[in-house]
């Protein structure tokens, strides 16, 4: 038994170095290394301690009134307790906040469900989003089923942020696929025109596009085509999003060897069959990191709509401390909003990482 173990050990790979060994080799190899390590570690602990002290040890969680916070050296979290309704709901009528809450849950559920592979067919995704958007719209807008009507100008907070993000994604993704395919068209006219379209919108700041959509298009479009300001802004945003995303997808398409399409051709597949079954699945896999990146950027960029007068969550937050007694506690409000952004964007990034692992099946 012992001897057989011995021989087995001989052919096994050498043991991995111990944790302590790695630490010593990496961080304390020379006296200078040791000094740098100790200084950096000291700095890190100092910063961490201060943050923890501010956020937890010296903070006040529950105060009846703002003045009680004035003597505290730490955070005054009671501002969140007192003003969270404005942060989360903006200008939405107080007694209807439940509608906005349910609408948020519906939207989050729709987004999460569309990340589940089972839903990945045009029919299922389509149904899911029609249902999701429909429920969201009925809850937010009202006007039927005995719900009072609330026009989009009064939507705000998290619900508005989620709505803009979801709507921009759902309009922008199909558009980006069409633009990417168009720019690779064999017909020079189409390729050139799509290329010009993409380069034109990419060259403009998002701010300009949103301003144009909100303020200038009403002068250019007939009344029945204008729609609400919110929808014009979303369409403008979606075009901007699609132009960037199209280039990501195009990069993924370029990376596919031409033999893939030729194999599809010789099997008798039509253009759309080759695009749908062979090119796009591979393009999405190729440029997944860049595609997720664009979603992350877009989620955070939704805050820019405040400039054309919408109270999405960041603007609602500013309103929460901007008036009355809580003016001094903007840091707490921003930390709170930052956390909300973090939860969404971090989940998105982790989902992207999961997708990359899942799609790498069979690719070593």
């Amino acid at each position, binding site marked *: 038994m012992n001897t057989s173990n011995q021989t087995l050990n001989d052919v096994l790979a050498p043991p991995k170095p111990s944790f302590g060994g790695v630490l010593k080799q990496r961080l304390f190899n020379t006296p200078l290394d040791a000094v740098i390590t100790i200084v950096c570690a000291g700095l890190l602990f100092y910063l961490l301690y201060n943050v923890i002290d501010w956020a937890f040890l010296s903070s006040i969680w529950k105060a009846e009134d703002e003045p009680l916070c004035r003597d505290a050296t730490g955070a005054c979290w009671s501002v969140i307790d007192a003003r969270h309704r404005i942060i989360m709901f903006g200008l939405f009528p107080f007694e209807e906040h439940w509608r906005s809450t349910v609408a948020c849950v519906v939207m989050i559920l729709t987004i999460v469900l569309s990340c589940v592979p089972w839903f990945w067919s045009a029919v299922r995704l389509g149904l899911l989003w029609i249902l999701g958007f429909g429920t969201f719209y009925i809850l937010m807008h009202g006007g039927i089923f005995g719900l009072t009507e609330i026009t989009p100008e009064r939507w705000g907070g998290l619900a508005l942020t989620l709505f803009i993000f979801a709507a921009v994604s759902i309009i922008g993704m199909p558009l980006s696929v069409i633009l990417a395919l168009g720019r690779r068209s064999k017909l020079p006219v189409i390729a050139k025109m799509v290329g010009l379209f993409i380069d034109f919108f990419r060259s403009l700041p998002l701010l300009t596009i949103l301003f144009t959509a909100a303020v200038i298009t009403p002068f250019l479009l007939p009344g029945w085509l204008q729609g609400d300001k919110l929808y014009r802004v979303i369409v403008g945003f979606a075009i901007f999003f699609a132009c960037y995303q199209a280039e990501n997808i195009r990069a993924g398409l370029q990376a596919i060897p031409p033999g893939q399409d030729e*194999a599809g051709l010789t*099997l008798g597949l039509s253009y759309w069959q080759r695009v749908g079954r062979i090119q796009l699945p591979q393009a999405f896999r190729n440029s997944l990191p860049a595609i997720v990146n664009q979603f992350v950027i877009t989620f955070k960029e939704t805050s820019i709509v405040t400039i054309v007068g919408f109270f999405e969550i960041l603007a609602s937050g500013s309103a929460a401390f901007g008036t009355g007694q809580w003016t001094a506690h903007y840091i707490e409000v921003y930390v709170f909003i930052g956390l909300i952004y973090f939860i969404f964007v971090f989940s998105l990034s982790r989902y992207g990482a999961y997708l990359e692992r899942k799609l790498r099946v069979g690719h070593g």
Partner: protein
Amino acid sequence: MADNKQSNTPAVSMSAVNKWFDDFHVLKDINLTVADGEKIVICGPSGSGKSTLIRCICKLEDHQRGSINVLGTELNDDIANIDEIRREVGMVFQQFNLFPHMTVLENCTLAQTLVRKKSRKEAEAIAMGFLEKVRIPEQANKYPGELSGGQQQRVAIARSLCMNPQILLFDEPTSALDPEMISEVLDVMVSLAEEGMTMVCVTHEMGFARRVADRVIFMDEGEIVEENDPMTFFDHPENERTKLFLGQILAH
């Protein structure tokens, strides 16, 4: 109806076909007829236009002059039903070109369900039949990236066969393979030939050519230089360029 056509018309007939890549005259006055059930091997130095020639047969390349008839239908820009001819002509590529995001089985069923409108169950049964024929049914649920080159090429052949093509084109099917994998692919091709499949193969596997070809065609600089039955072609080549080429590839 297709059977009727087969007995009367050749599988492929090319007459006075010319093709240019920009200024480069890649095919010069090609005349070639492939009878139903015939096996043809095309060889020649690289750049001689042999791959371009068979790519013209399934219209992966356009020709500029002359005419190409495949299964009784002329290939030109007017025909909207080019896909219909393509699905009767299978092609096996040097680089296999399997779809990497699909399993072996999905590779074989995709076109059956989309183009032939077969049910998934039926398509899978046909696919398994051909995977057994190329002797890798046990790999059906793996992805192409998990297979060796020889296995991938056999899957590619099975994928083509699933469409029940009337002509099978091979574009240097063994050139990208490690030497020990070449014979497993050639064995499959030989058994196909013995079953009477119409085949046009661009290959330098001269043993294969001797064994199965009805005719061997030698191309150089875009022309068909020599064309003969394998015995005569290898043992008594007529043209100087053929002799030089055969000397080079058979030297060792």
